[in-house]
């Protein structure tokens, strides 16, 4: 803490270490740190949402792990800021009521005069600048701007956080209006911090008192001469009677507990008041049947589907049995029962009832014997002169019969080409 005083102004040098003045208590400084962290967090996560589609915002949101995480962080930082505001109010009550500190932060007409004086002095219209007390008009402007900002952000934030509760009392358009105000107020706050705060305590002269808590006598003389004068005159920080202090504490603590409890309850309600939307991800579309084909168009009617007659060829054993019992010259070996299925399988595609290419339809015995448009194709007992056999035995005809099948056909024709 003493490095601040390593280069004291010449006229103040004495043997003793130069005097320092406590400007901010530890509690004040902690409040500042917590608020600073939450403010910067709120600003980054908030502006990234306000200008969501700018490239910078997109990379911030990407870095954060998505907009829902950005929002969660924003909400967390808002809770921290609300809590520190509650603490500030309680702490302020203690300072004012128990410690009986003067209300030095209240704005007054003198502040307006100071501002005008400073303005005129800087323009060279006055010989001397404003002589100010514990809080300069610049500091008061910043403090009250912050109070205004927190109130606006709190109210509009509540409306957006609790839209359903809001519309119980207010028209729906308060919600988009709150969003506009919240975003605009954020821009105002960030710009004010950049212009006013940065210039006032960083650029003009780097003021470390919010971190060290101390100002040197020279700094006091420059910035808060009236306060310094009060201190020197013994008017500030006059010791309080311990008995009175104890009595006031006894009164204030229950009030503070009640007030604090009420405010904390309000914060709790703010945060947990309603579950705005269902958490189902995402809203489920109305179920639709996906595969509902039209009934397939039926095929054009076919007079006789293949195979036309499911005639079962007599089993060899039955044939054998009939051969032994009946006379050997009767009952021909091959009948339509055997050749019909061969025709059905191999020929019916073209020479069926539907197409009957060249007039030949081999689907029934009668049609087969009728032959093609230019004459019969089967001459009973004469396979060599049967056109069907001639064409098939040459090979290469569509639906070519195998040698075994051809042998059956030949046997059938040569045995008289009988139906049964």
């Amino acid at each position, binding site marked *: 803490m003493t490095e601040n005083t390593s280069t004291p102004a010449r006229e103040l040098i004495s043997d003793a270490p130069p005097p320092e003045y406590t400007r901010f208590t530890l509690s004040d400084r902690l409040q500042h740190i917590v608020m600073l962290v939450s403010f910067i967090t709120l600003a980054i996560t908030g502006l990234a*949402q306000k200008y969501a589609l700018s490239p910078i915002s997109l990379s911030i949101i990407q870095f954060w792990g998505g907009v*829902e995480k950005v929002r969660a962080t924003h909400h967390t930082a808002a809770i921290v800021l609300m809590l520190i505001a509650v603490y500030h109010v309680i702490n302020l009550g203690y300072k004012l009521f128990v410690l009986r500190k003067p209300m030095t932060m209240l704005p007054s007409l003198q502040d307006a005069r100071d501002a005008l004086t400073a303005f005129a002095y800087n*323009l060279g219209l006055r010989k001397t600048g404003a002589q100010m007390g514990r809080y300069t008009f610049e500091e008061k402007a910043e403090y009250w701007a912050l109070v205004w900002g927190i109130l606006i952000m709190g109210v509009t934030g509540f409306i957006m956080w609790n839209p359903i509760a809001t519309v119980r009392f207010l028209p729906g358009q308060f919600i988009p209006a709150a969003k506009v*105000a919240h975003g605009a107020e954020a821009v*105002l706050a960030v710009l004010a911090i950049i212009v006013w705060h940065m210039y006032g305590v960083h650029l003009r002269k780097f003021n470390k008192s919010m971190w060290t808590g101390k100002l040197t006598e020279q700094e006091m003389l420059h910035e808060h001469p009236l306060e310094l004068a009060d201190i020197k005159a013994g008017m500030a920080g006059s010791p309080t009677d311990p008995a009175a202090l104890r009595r006031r504490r006894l009164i204030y603590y229950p009030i503070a507990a009640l007030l604090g409890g009420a405010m904390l309850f309000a914060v709790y309600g703010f945060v947990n008041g309603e579950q705005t939307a269902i958490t189902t*991800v995402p809203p489920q579309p109305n179920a*639709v*049947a996906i595969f509902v084909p039209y009934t397939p168009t039926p095929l054009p009617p076919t007079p006789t589907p293949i195979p036309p007659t499911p005639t079962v060829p007599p089993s060899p054993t039955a044939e054998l049995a009939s051969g032994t019992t009946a006379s050997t010259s009767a009952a021909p070996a091959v009948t339509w029962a055997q050749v019909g299925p061969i025709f059905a399988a191999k020929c019916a595609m073209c020479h069926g009832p*539907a197409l009957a290419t060249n007039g030949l339809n081999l689907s029934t015995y009668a049609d087969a014997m009728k032959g093609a448009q230019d004459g019969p194709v089967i001459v009973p007992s004469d396979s060599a002169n049967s056109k069907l056999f001639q064409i098939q035995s040459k090979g290469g005809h569509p639906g070519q019969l195998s040698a075994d099948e051809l042998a059956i056909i030949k046997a059938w024709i040569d045995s008289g080409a009988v139906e049964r």
Partner: protein
Amino acid sequence: MSHKLSMQLRVASIALGSALLVAAALAMASPARAAYVAQPPTADKPTNEYCLSCHSKQGMVKELPSGETLSLTIDQEKFDHSVHNEEKLACVDCHTNITSFPHPSFEANTVRDVSLQLYQSCQNCHAEQYNKVLDSVHQKALAGGNFNAAVCTDCHNPHQQTRLTDKQTGKLLPDARLKIPQTCARCHSTIYDTYKGSVHGAALVESGNQDVPTCIDCHGVHNIQNPTDAAFRNDIPQLCAKCHTDPQIMGKYGISTNVLNTYVSDFHGTTVTLFQQVSPGTPTNKPVCTDCHGVHDISKVDNPATGIAIKQNLLPKCQRCHPTVTTDNFTDAWMSHYVASPTHFPLVYYVNMFYKFFIPAVIGGMLLFVIVDVYGRIRRSRKGAQH
């Protein structure tokens, strides 16, 4: 004997004639847009006329082991008008395993099996489309064992498909466009029935409107994606915006082109757009266009029964995600695609207006003080230096 000879002569002359025709067509065709250029038939490659001499006959069927009947008849007239015939493709260009009669044996249990075997030859000419299909929801379903999933030939009957796109520009022909929903309806008939009643579908079906979207405008063609995927859903606002931000189309119907801007600047739209840009595959519970306007049943917003410009119709849409809402006051939390003005959402308008003046006034005042302070300091330090 003479009969057989004349048959051979006829086949030979047809083959020769076809070869000449194809050669002529080849010489004239612009190969740039053609999916495929037919090869001239060779001696061992039968002509279409040869194939059709049997296959154009009515009632040509084959019974399959499943008991189903497979029609082998080609509708000659429809084939004549098909794009494949127009481009002089030979039957055997697709039916590559068939070179003569008798045909090689054919192993298929069901009619579906036949399609599943044969559609693969489409890739020989239409590789681009075929490869796109490999990424589609249909192929994924097929690979997952759903044999009903559509393959090429379910949408494009290769023996009947007429030309779909303009040969020069590659753009979909107006007639083809009108038929798209009916094609999808073969499998998705209930969705088609819904679509027919929607503002888009009715315009297409009843008056042949060419501006309204057909199935493929939203779902894509060939590489059709699962519309219930998060990525598809997150992209829906951009999908609708393709037409709904186009002043040329919207101007005809007096529809605002501000619908995307106003959506994206709202809480819901901002969120969905961020998901779409930052993590497209992650689902979000914020609504997209279809959650309020409907999917296949989109109606006009001023339709008294269904239009969501009417608060009573909008409230149930809000309640799907905000079930505890009871008052239609809540619907005004969403600005219904309006830009705030003194007549629509005046409070929003005036708050915005206030900050338009308030921010410059405050920050301007601060800047003035800061600049004057800097000036004063410089002036005084110069003076101090002179002394």
